[in-house]
């Protein structure tokens, strides 16, 4: 299935990945090839086949409600790129 460049741009925006205008053609072609390979799946009859999310079809184990973590703010913020007043900084978000 051929993918249009503007679709790639839309997907790239969703994924917050920037694609160089120089490379957009090549990237589009590559993705098209990969998705072309994937199209083989369409021919397979999967009526009534349950999708497999976990290879062992296991079910959830539940954790007892208890506080097990302590304040490690200093340790975690020591490796953060931008922190002020104990808050993580990002460029201003306007709502």
């Amino acid at each position, binding site marked *: 299935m051929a993918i249009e460049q503007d679709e790639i741009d839309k997907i790239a925006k*969703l994924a917050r990945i920037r694609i160089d205008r120089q490379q957009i053609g090549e990237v589009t072609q590559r993705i098209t090839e990969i998705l072309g390979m994937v199209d083989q799946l369409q021919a397979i009859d999967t009526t009534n086949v349950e999708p497999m*999310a*976990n290879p062992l079809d296991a079910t*959830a184990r539940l*954790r*007892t409600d*208890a506080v097990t973590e302590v304040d490690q703010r200093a340790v*975690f913020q020591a490796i953060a790129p931008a922190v002020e007043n104990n808050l993580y*900084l990002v460029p201003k978000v306007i*709502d």
Partner: protein
Amino acid sequence: MQWETVIGLEVHLQLATQSKIFSGSATTFGAEPNTQACAVDLAMPGMLPVLNEKAVRFAIMFGLAIGAKIGKRSVFDRKNYFYPDLPKGYQISQFSDPIVGEGKFTIQLTDGSTRKIGITRAHLEEDAGKSLHEDFHDQTGIDLNRAGTPLLEIVTEPDIRTAEEAVTYLKDLHTLVTYLGISDGNMAEGSMRCDVNISLRPMGSDTLGTRAEIKNINSFRFVERAIRYEFNRQADILEDGGTVVQETRLYDAEKDETRSMRSKEVANDYRYFPEPDLLPVVVDDNYIDALREQLPELPRQKRERFTLDYQLSPYDAGVLSATRTMADYYESVATGCGDPKVAANWVQGELLGRLNKHELAIDACPVSPQALSGLIQRILDNSISGKIAKQVFEAMWLGEGSADEVIDAKGLKQVSDSGELENMVDEVIAANAAQVEQYLGADDNKRKKLLGFFVGQIMKLSKGQANPQMVNKLLAQKLAP
């Protein structure tokens, strides 16, 4: 043109668990920024979620309380979008297989009528962190304490038709969840947040109009105002022949208006898919039945029981069962003193009055139900009058002791000894010859009024402690034998 308002509400309820839904961090409100955000909450590399059993339990309890279908096999999904308060770049939520399915929630309006509001579903998800804009010039500061707090998102069908119904729904929902003990439902603290979906259509039409979504309203009053504002805004547009834009809006409390949320306008394709780090949650009938048995008496059941067993009016029953702690308090007093009606008057009147004045919740009440019960018993056995009881209550409120202790200490016991009372009556009659003359010459009606004067004198003389019924009788006898 007559417009019908069509409203659906989405409530995000923070569940009152000790730890977060997918990590062992504390959920205490008001902690210093980022002191309750562990590696899992911070989405550090390699970190994995583990589901909190209590969140599952609380969700199912809610479902059982509204008679909803319980999702015996519910699945968590990733809801993908980028935002700084969402560390993983996706929120773990439930999309196609929620833990609670369809149910019905009955609300009671002020005129006593009830309406059944359809609940579409309720699902578990994690809360995001908080963005703080104020202190920073051109930056935003992110606090991730709240990231990972368990939320139950409760979605109604578009069955609500007025602002009053919306507020009633929220209040009744608040009552239910506090009864169940699954949330403190505190809108001001953000543990209960409401999104309002509102559209208009011509009265009589059955197709839905285009709706606007007003997000994250955090008080009953604002919900009401936002609905009124939106109604006017949309009606104006439609009457001018325009179309309402489907969009997300914010309610601005200061300006009392809603406005478009620009940043969320970018089309978001959430790309939901089953969360591979968490496996499907399977609960069996045993688990569900055990929870059903452990459900406390629900608000409506309690209200009905109070009306029946204690002969309370629907209004009184409503007030006294508004919260579980209030209901337990009242019931304790009612059974303790043996007179539910008097108990109702006292709890609703003196007690609630004082609590409201001091802005205290019932669980911070300085007078225990046993103590109040004791006081009421002294009224019922004529030890003190209702009026004196209020004095005693004041003293009890200030911590001066039990009813008996205060009555003793202040010598407030009602005088009911006929001998003593007779002496007082004689004294007052002797001291007020002119009024006695008037009384003797008056007709029945006037006599009733004049009697009041004498009663008043005796009350003064006895410092309010004379038994009023006996005084009345003695006066009537002595004045006109």
